[in-house]
């Protein structure tokens, strides 16, 4: 077998993952981003910070989450043994709290009294509003008007938690516009405000920092599977919007070459232009919102419209490290359509009694297609990144047969 160089040292000092990543932001943000990178560099090596982070993850967020053997789903599909990493059981209902906690602790160290966030499905907004409430920080969350409507429950949760929710009505009124608006706020209030970006995207150091904070879930999963099965899994899968839950799962396994890693993008209605959010299927190299990566765009470099039944995956660019892992051949990417995801949503609900988020349902959809093709001796881990309570109203519009 060919000897492989270990995957380490990404991103490099300038924030690049090979040709991807970097810092493509207005001049006013360069210095705050450099400060953030320096501060993060200090805390990642500071045992006191790590101890504090671990404390809140355990006592407040409810870590570790179970690695649950989905016995009935495994039997039903008749192939690989399926384990679910239960991030849906975390406080606030998704993996987003891991990163929000890490970043709010960082904001406190930087003495910023105000935090802002963007949100798509609302899970990151809720997580940010939650940690801001716990530490008594002012919190503003930007959310596209379309998303605010399809995730109305989360809007109410954020308000209840004391955050101000500002709906964004420009462009297609989803996650991308919420990020632009959050960046406009940050550039204006940069001295008092920390921007808690919710996914492994945007300018350096966010893709690295979010990955590191989310890696807790992959580290746990690795230990748990070794304990339960005495060996590494054969396949990991997770949905990919910006890609924070996927990178959190993949990263601790990246040098375990026998472990296959598959990210699942939003295939939307179909893979025609404007009908999906599968960047690796229809995107080309571009620069959006701080980073160089695969971007859905037209011939003139204008960002394309996207569509997904799940607000959290409905975004035109993919986190830069995913582009790099794909180029290196270390991870593969596929997509699941809205229909397949809705099918996954119902299947997991009925067979395991777990209602998954529509985002995570894309990974379930892939599992439903893939597990039967694998031998019974194979093991796969699916990241169940969030729970689906927020999605039941939206899903009911699409699932006609349940009256």
């Amino acid at each position: 077998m060919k000897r492989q160089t270990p995957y380490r040292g990404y991103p490099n000092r300038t924030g690049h993952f090979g040709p991807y990543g970097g810092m493509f932001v207005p001049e006013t943000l360069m210095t705050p981003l450099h400060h953030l990178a320096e501060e993060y560099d200090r805390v990642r090596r500071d045992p006191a910070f790590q101890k504090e982070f671990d404390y809140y993850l355990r006592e407040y967020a409810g870590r570790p989450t179970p690695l649950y053997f989905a016995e009935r789903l495994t039997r039903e599909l008749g192939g690989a043994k399926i384990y679910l990493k239960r991030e849906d059981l975390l406080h606030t209902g998704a993996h987003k709290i891991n990163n929000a906690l890490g970043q709010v602790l960082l904001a406190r160290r930087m003495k910023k009294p105000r935090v802002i966030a963007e949100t798509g499905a609302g899970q990151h907004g809720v997580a940010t509003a939650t940690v801001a409430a716990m530490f008594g920080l002012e919190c503003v969350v930007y959310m596209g008007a379309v998303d605010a409507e399809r995730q109305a429950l989360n809007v109410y949760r954020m308000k209840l938690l004391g955050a101000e929710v500002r709906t964004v009505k420009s462009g297609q009124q989803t996650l991308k516009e919420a990020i632009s608006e959050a960046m406009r706020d940050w550039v204006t209030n940069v001295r008092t405000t920390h921007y808690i970006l919710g996914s492994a995207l945007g300018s350096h150091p966010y893709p690295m920092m979010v990955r590191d904070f989310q890696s807790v879930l992959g580290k746990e999963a690795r230990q748990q599977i070794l304990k339960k099965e005495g060996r590494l899994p054969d396949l990991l899968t997770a949905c990919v919007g910006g890609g924070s839950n996927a990178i959190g799962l993949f990263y601790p396994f990246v040098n375990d070459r026998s472990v296959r890693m598959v990210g699942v993008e939003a295939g939307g209605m179909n893979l025609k232009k404007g009908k999906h959010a599968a960047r690796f299927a229809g995107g080309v190299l571009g620069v959006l919102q701080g980073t160089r990566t695969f971007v859905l765009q037209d011939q003139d470099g204008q960002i394309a419209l996207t569509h997904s039944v799940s607000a959290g995956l409905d975004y035109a660019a993919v986190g830069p490290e995913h582009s790099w892992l794909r180029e290196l051949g270390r991870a593969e990417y596929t997509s699941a359509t809205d229909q397949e995801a809705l099918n996954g949503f119902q299947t997991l609900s009925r067979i395991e009694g777990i209602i998954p988020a529509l985002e995570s349902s894309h990974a379930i959809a892939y599992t439903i297609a893939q597990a039967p093709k694998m031998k019974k001796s194979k093991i796969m881990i699916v990241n169940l990144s969030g729970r689906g309570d927020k999605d039941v109203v939206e899903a009911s519009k699409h699932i006609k047969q349940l009256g």
Partner: protein
Amino acid sequence: MNRIDRHFTALRKTGKKAFVAYITAGDHSLDVTASLVREFEKSGVDAVELGVPFSDPLADGAVNQSAADRALRSGTSLAGILRTVEKLRREGAQIPLILFTYFNPIHRYGLKRFVTDAAKAGVDGVLYLDLPPEESGECLDLMESAGLHAIHLVSPTTPDARLARIVRRARGFIYYVSREGVTGMQSKLQGGIAANVARIRRCTKLPLVIGFGISTPAQVKSAASFADGCVVGSVIVKRIGELQGKPGLARQVAALVRRLAAPLKTIS
């Protein structure tokens, strides 16, 4: 000699300050843009920044966002903007023209091809809003050899070490962003301009213009008193938006521009 250098040298000799106007290219149509440039040149505007419309203009406030939307709806592309510049030059326009752009449309067009085509069309400089020196090495080398000036932004948050790095690669003039925030009008200029201007002056002999938020003749006068000139954008763009489809748009906008620039044209 690059038109920007020629123009600023001439201004310096006569002790005058530069009035730079920003408009979004293709706002209504590229024909309207061309008439505006012609009227601006006649009105004594010293340079025009042509905004390349982008679908996700994260450094821009609401006024410029709407203008970008209008420009994209009218079918504006980078290639079309370059053709418009070429046409203006063929007609004899000598006013310095600077493209003000996000990087993705350039990236998609192809960097080498863009630099060649822009220089050939008669563009004098390019300001990339989201391409800091950390990411722009190759781009700046290409521009340098094509004789295109890379205009750089400096902001109140830019520390001295970084400032030194920026001015090394800056050409034409330095654009000092007079406040932390996005483009748009404001009722009062942010403080600390004098100190920041002095800081920049210590690092470079390039002309210095001040922009972001300047929207009245009084602010023009005040901002320019600190520097070699100022940039006015949103208030002009807003007027263009209001005059959509009206006859005499270019003349009316030029009248506004003359009022704004008046303080710089009457004092010496």
